[in-house]
């Protein structure tokens, strides 16, 4: 794939020489093997369809997270089955379970180790808000320590709801101004 950037101030519009199969999936116009699109659309198209989640399985919700990977719900249908336990290889952290004060530091540290761009899904009532554990040891929502993109309700979240959440995350990624982040200092 060859990308021609048209001038320094015009990076929003680019010409791409690529295969016909690239045409679908993002906002683009095609003429004689040339595709005209926005860099944002291209980057978002790539990012949204190759989410590698990092399962931060902390409690009960982690079992449903395993269920999503199982054969009945099969998250592989959406291209997100590549669960990576290493923060360096993943771009979406799924916080599944109760975050206690003792664990919060580790969650934050793993999040910090993830390479940008990165997103966070708070799975289940506990990760969203502390859930039913309003106690001396429970963090009242993981958004107290890391930014959350998608909140999913449920105790535990049903696998369908998690899949829905990941698809909303894809929608969110599609609407991001990604190119700006790439080229601005």
């Amino acid at each position: 794939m060859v990308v021609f950037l048209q001038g320094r101030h015009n990076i929003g519009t680019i010409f791409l020489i690529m295969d016909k199969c690239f045409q679908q999936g993002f906002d683009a116009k095609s003429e004689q093997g040339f595709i005209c699109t926005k860099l944002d659309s291209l980057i978002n198209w790539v990012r949204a369809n190759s989410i590698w989640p990092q399962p931060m399985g902390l409690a009960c919700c982690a079992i449903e997270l395993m269920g999503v990977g199982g054969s009945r719900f099969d998250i592989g249908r959406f291209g997100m089955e590549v669960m990576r336990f290493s923060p360096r290889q993943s771009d979406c952290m799924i916080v599944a379970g109760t975050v206690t004060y003792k664990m919060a530091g580790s969650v934050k540290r793993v999040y910090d180790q993830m390479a940008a761009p990165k997103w966070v899904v708070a799975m289940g009532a506990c990760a969203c808000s502390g859930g039913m554990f309003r106690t001396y040891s429970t963090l009242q929502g993981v958004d107290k320590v890391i930014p959350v993109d998608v909140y999913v309700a449920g105790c535990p979240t049903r696998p369908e709801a998690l899949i829905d959440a990941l698809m909303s995350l894809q929608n969110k990624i599609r609407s991001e101004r990604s190119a700006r982040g790439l080229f601005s200092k």
Partner: protein
Amino acid sequence: MEKEFTYPEPASLEADRLGEKMILNIGPSHPATHGVLRMKLELDGDLITRADPIVGQLHRGQEKMAENLTYNQFIPFTDRLDYLAPLCNNIAFVQCVEKIAGIGVTERCKAVRVICCELSRIASHLVGIAAYGMDAGSWTVFMYCFTQREKLCTLFEQLTGARMTTSYARVGGLARDIPEGWLGNVNSFANQFLPALDEIDALITRNKIFIDRTAGIGVVSPEQAMQWGLTGANLRGSGVASDLRKDVPYLGYENYEFDVPIGVNGDCYDRWLVRIEEMRQSIRIVRQAIEKMPDGPVNVADPRISLPKKEKVLRDMEDLINNFVLVTQGPDIPAGDAYFEAENPKGALGFYIVSKGGGVPYRVKIRAPSFVSLSAMQEILPGHHMSDMAVILGSFDFVLGECDR
């Protein structure tokens, strides 16, 4: 964090193979630790010379919460103890409350509870062996186990409305009677489960790689197992035929025919075999329970314990008041204390409840089998190789929700 790694005494040089020891921290976010366990290992080359499990990353203060909730309100919290077998926990807790109050539940209730317990046991063991197989490098067995577990989740959903967090038991009975046709569904599950289990068995049990990785690893002698307080499949894997369902029968387990599988060598392989066989025995119990399922009510006919019928609540003033008092103040449990242990998939889950009368417990103490299994790691892990750690942890099948409470 580095501060915690300083050891006061220098390691002895004679024991060293490389001349220096290394401290390796594993977890709390690591696939081999099954949740939020953190292991601090002292390594000599790849030989573990010291292992410290660090627990508490999932401490949610459940025992403290129990002191402010009525007995029935605490049942949802018992779901989150061992979240792989919530029904077992619900039932163990209400059995303890019933022991203080001296409530005898109806025969139908007992039979339904037995089915619930055994189905839960299968669900829990399925996740246990799925994770264990994964630790030993087999992804296929995970898929096979989860396919079966999903069928169980559907059954639980039909019964309780929730896939995992069931909250089904109530003091003196159950939340509701079983839905129509449910027993038939359980039966067809049982029929298709046994061949599926044979398949899982055939995939792994005679697999050379699996045997090489597990046989002779993590050996626990019967004496050690009893000294350390191991219970459940981990104790039976060491060759001690101890099962609370046989030794101190509750829920009428004495009326069911089943065998207690035990291991011979007490190694990781035996614990695997015991779990597989226990699932077969559970199916046996479920089938007997379905066969002789008695008719009648599931709740005791005591207005101080059980909620009145909904139609009556909508019609009669007295029943409405009774319903209101029971829901807000909880069932009236006399002063006293009781300890009850149930044979859960992970081991003996015990509840010690002190009541000072009224609907709220004064103190609830939970004896978690996973905590005991994990404490034994300090003794078991040293002397093994680093790569054996995942298999040993997997073979003990613990769950951190229960361990940290």
